[in-house]
């Protein structure tokens, strides 16, 4: 959750990074005329990193607040690793060995490499460093997790990590996210968990919102609601005249764990019914 909070602040960060071209240039020029405020922030974060365990145990709340304000760029890579305990992972030592092996997913991975952040400076160009390391990490992961192997979409997450840290570190954080934070459930071949998440998300959007119920099956919420484009275009369009309402609506979404559990059961029932029907058809 902490990581999530920071990735939000990262979005604005990335924008500015892209605009300023190389991050190294912008930071070295910035360091000469650091404001006092920035200097304080750096000292503070330096201390946090050095006394990490203590902060984690005793000042969790303050730490969360600071992360939400944004981790300074230079500390981001290390803090992300600390946050998900990815600093001393045994799998890190296997990384170079993994790269020497060949993976059955290589062809699949290769096909998407040039199609992941194609407009981002770091990943631009056929022989760019970005594309090379992205391929490496995806391949290494497909070897440590044969069930998931490679799944479209996951390269965007790794790409985001690679914008912050070297490949071995990015690999470790990715392994952590997938395995300890259950991200891999979304990418498994059956995609059952993804289906469930969409089902729950649809419910959250429908509750308390005013739009009309679906007219025809397949043309209403349940079909439309599953599209990325839908959230980018259709929903905002409904609030065209009043964007504040959209924000208000987003804040009004209430997360009820009990209801989510119920939806999980509901969804399982729907899915097993579908399976039965399919077997009958066959």
């Amino acid at each position: 959750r902490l990581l999530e909070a920071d990735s939000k602040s990262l979005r604005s960060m990335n924008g500015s990074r892209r605009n300023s071209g190389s991050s190294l240039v912008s930071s070295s020029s910035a360091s000469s005329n650091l404001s006092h405020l920035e200097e304080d922030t750096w000292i503070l974060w330096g201390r946090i990193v050095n006394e990490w365990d203590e902060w984690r145990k005793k000042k969790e709340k303050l730490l969360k607040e600071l992360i939400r304000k944004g981790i300074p760029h230079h500390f981001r890579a290390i803090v992300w690793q600390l946050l998900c305990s990815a600093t001393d992972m045994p799998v890190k030592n296997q990384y170079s060995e993994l790269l020497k092996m060949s993976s059955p997913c290589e062809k699949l991975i290769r096909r998407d490499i040039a199609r992941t952040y194609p407009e981002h400076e770091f990943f631009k160009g056929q022989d760019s460093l970005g594309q090379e390391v992205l391929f490496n990490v995806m391949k290494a992961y497909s070897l440590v997790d044969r069930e998931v192997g490679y799944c479209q979409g996951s390269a965007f997450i790794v790409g985001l990590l690679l914008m912050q840290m070297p490949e071995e570190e990015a690999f470790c954080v990715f392994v952590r996210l997938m395995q300890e934070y259950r991200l891999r459930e979304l990418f498994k071949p059956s995609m059952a968990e993804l289906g469930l998440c969409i089902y729950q998300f649809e419910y959250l959007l429908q509750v308390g919102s005013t739009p009309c119920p679906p007219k025809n099956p397949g043309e209403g919420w349940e079909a439309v609601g599953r599209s990325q484009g839908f959230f980018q275009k259709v929903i905002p369009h409904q609030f065209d005249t009043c964007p504040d309402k959209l924000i208000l609506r987003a804040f009004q979404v209430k997360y009820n764990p009990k209801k989510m559990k119920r939806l999980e059961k509901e969804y399982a029932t729907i899915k097993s019914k579908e399976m039965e029907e399919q077997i009958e058809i066959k």
Partner: protein
Amino acid sequence: QSSDFLFKFLVIGNAGTGKSCLLHQFIEKKFKEDSNHTIGVEFGSKIINVGGKYVKLQIWDTAGQERFRSVTRSYYRGAAGALLVYDITSRETYNALTNWLTDARMLASQNIVIILCGNKKDLDADREVTFLEASRFAQENELMFLETSALTGENVEEAFVQCARKILNKIESGELDPERMGSGIQYGDAALRQLRSPRRAQAQSAQECGC
């Protein structure tokens, strides 16, 4: 711009065959050099003129990787037309067509009109699937067929227009009933304005809210 009809279209086929590029070329009339691979589903829409009728195409562009099928299949319902895309330089993508076809026929509307698109026509030197072979496949499976190039734009608009034309013909001949549930066809705003029966007025107000 107002339209007489609204058709729901799908773009399906293996990963990397150029589905999103076909959609982009159709809508923007240019080739998208830097495009991300599609996760889940994206969509676009465009109004075209087919024999004097304005048809709004609402196009659902899907992710190609096999495992996404369990997710994207839920969008098939109520599609009136589909572009089934393979890559002429990849036999593997051609061999997968039967599976895609089964899915589309089973899950979309029964009368779905499908056009087979052999994309990347510009890469003729690397061709692995001949025109003849694919056109035979199309004939056997009652599909329309075109070879397209999202890069040059060749036959891209034609693919969408031909598919829409066939649907319109079916409506005119009575083979397709736009009012049947799940037909993937709705009356557009222009048609609704002309027909002011109370029931349709209701349908119109429902449409205006954008869902």
